[in-house]
């Protein structure tokens, strides 16, 4: 399955948008945190898990999704939220904890919910799988269109929730696709030190579903694999497991010294940064030139800056609003 020109440019634009958003978050996050790094300080306190390097997974999958389709994402959610079409202003405001945020500041960057595009994420490894299976069941029972995609890191494949959810989805033949973003590290523990199989797509065999492996963080290979899997679930042919080799260009969270990485690994990953690679691919194919690239990048930057201004200009809810929204 090959993307159209329009899909190629959509994927590139959303990778650029996500990357620039994270670059801006990275610099704003560090405000107030130097010279002494204190996670509670600055305009964006708390943990911050950047997804730069993993953008191909988000755009290659979400290029096939409509707003009605359900996505559950992880503690590292920004690239997927951007690709799924989450309201960028409200998302950034939530990351800042502001009243105009998706949850008025009750959730923060690991708990982004945008019901308009059926997006949610959570901070616990493997937690989104059950809800994705249930949303898929909901669509089946209601006879309504829409499929579910559960994103997870490779570490989640060692959680019980992973195995329970895959089995349940397979037993009930539900329209759900499981997407593993394999960035090779569970915080500081390497995949080969934690996982009995070299490739998690092989685990699909245990649940009698197709298992697909995508190498080298390749945007169009991801697009193709996801497109085929999503087409199958739309036709009612049951779930698929996809594992994508991707790259975490940053630490597990900001402040991570990354001393556990082998020497030279990070530099190597940066040389294989998927965004310049895809830009070159599009330039070589004649789908992009320097001028149109500049326009696209400037547009993405302007959109991000507008969202950041919106967040910065927004107020905080009064603290006692913390007592609201426990129940509806």
């Amino acid at each position, binding site marked *: 399955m090959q993307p159209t020109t329009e899909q190629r440019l959509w994927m590139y634009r959303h990778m650029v948008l996500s990357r620039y958003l994270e670059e801006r978050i990275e610099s704003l996050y560090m405000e107030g945190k130097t010279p002494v790094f204190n996670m509670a300080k600055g305009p964006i306190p708390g943990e911050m898990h950047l997804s730069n390097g993993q953008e191909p997974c988000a755009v290659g999958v979400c290029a096939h999704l409509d707003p009605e389709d359900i996505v559950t994402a992880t503690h590292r959610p920004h690239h997927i939220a951007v690709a799924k079409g989450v309201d960028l202003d409200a998302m950034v405001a939530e990351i800042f904890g502001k009243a105009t945020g*998706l949850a008025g500041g009750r959730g923060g960057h690991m708990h982004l919910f945008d*019901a308009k595009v059926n997006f949610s994420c959570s901070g616990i490894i493997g*937690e989104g799988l059950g809800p994705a*299976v*249930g949303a898929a069941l909901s669509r089946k029972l209601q006879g309504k269109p829409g499929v579910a995609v559960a994103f997870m890191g490779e570490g989640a494949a060692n959680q019980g929730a992973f195995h329970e*959810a895959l089995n349940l989805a397979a037993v009930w033949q539900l329209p759900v696709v499981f997407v593993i973003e394999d960035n090779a590290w569970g915080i500081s523990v390497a995949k080969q030190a934690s996982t009995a199989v070299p490739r998690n797509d092989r685990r699909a065999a245990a649940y009698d579903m197709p298992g697909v492996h995508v190498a080298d963080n390749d945007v169009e290979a991801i697009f193709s694999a996801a497109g085929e899997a999503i087409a199958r679930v739309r036709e009612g042919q049951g779930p698929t497991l996809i594992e994508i080799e991707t790259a975490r260009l940053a630490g597990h969270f900001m402040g991570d010294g990354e001393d556990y990485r082998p020497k030279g690994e990070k530099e190597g990953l940066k040389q294989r940064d998927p965004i310049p690679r895809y830009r070159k691919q599009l330039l070589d194919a004649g789908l992009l030139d320097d001028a149109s690239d500049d326009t696209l990048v400037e547009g993405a930057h302007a959109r991000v800056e507008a969202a950041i201004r919106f967040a910065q200009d927004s107020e905080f809810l009064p603290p006692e609003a913390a007592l609201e929204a*426990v129940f509806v």
Partner: protein
Amino acid sequence: MTTTTSAGTRKLTIARAMAEATAQEMRNDPRVFVMGEDIGPLGGVFGNTRGLYDEFGPERVRDTPISETAFIGAAVGAASDGMRPIVELMFVDFFGVCMDAIYNLMAKNTYFSGGKVKVPMVLMTSTGGGYSDAGQHSQCLYGTFAHLPGMKVVAPSNAYDAKGLMTAAIHDDNPVVFMYHKSLQGMGWLGTEKGATVPVPEESYTLEIGKAAVVREGHDVTLVSLAAGVHHCLRAAQALEDEGFSAEVVDLRSLVPLDRETLRASVAKTGRLIVVDEDYHSFGVSGEIIASVVEHDHACLKAAPRRVAYPDIPIPFAPTMEQWALPNADKIVDAFHQMMLS
């Protein structure tokens, strides 16, 4: 939504009342469906889904694999997508394998969405011991669930309340944990508290979640409990009446929200408080009930409050040990005697 307090003469067990409420809601609302272990053709290990599979079929009455994390998580996903699932955690003791789906997803998604995502689901689960099922199949854990914010918690003592609370739980746009006590279910093999099987109207009705009931009026002492404990209190009240004392019995019915007003009004009247709880003694329901009264008005008490609760030990198997540890009417009467002596 119809509400009625009229009770006919047809008696039902709690199990039958739960199944009837569920069936009536499933007829009215195609969004309601049931999932859990052995809730299909078997009708639930404790009888509370009996008849549903035959009437509604396997799509809406779904036997699940033994995968509580997956199917409770799935219920959260389905509820967030517009369905109204009812899921069963067969024994509350099993919460250990799936608590993440319960307290990190079910109970928090509404908050994390600023109230925009509703999670209208019922998690029904069996509680209680007394039949030598040992320490992983006999707990109540009321306090564990009530402690964690974001989920309502109900625990009926009789079939009339069970039907009304079940219907209200299904209607509720929030997650509701429906804790039913095995000794009240009307399953012969568990032994059955006769007082739980009461007249239940055939028509649908709701009981407001968060309202306690004064099930016996009195003026010398307030006995507060829930579920099976209410029946111990009623027997104790009868014994005390034979001694010339008048005990008021408050059936909490709901832990979240907790009806502190009814509690405080009763203790303000009687001046004495004994809390009866089959859950563990420390850090639980009994402490919360006493605090709710005392922090509001300590001067209303004529004596220090007392509690008759399960000791802080795992539940033992041997009947001699388990029965020794469980609350009962004699212990409540003893607590009252000590209160009057001190």
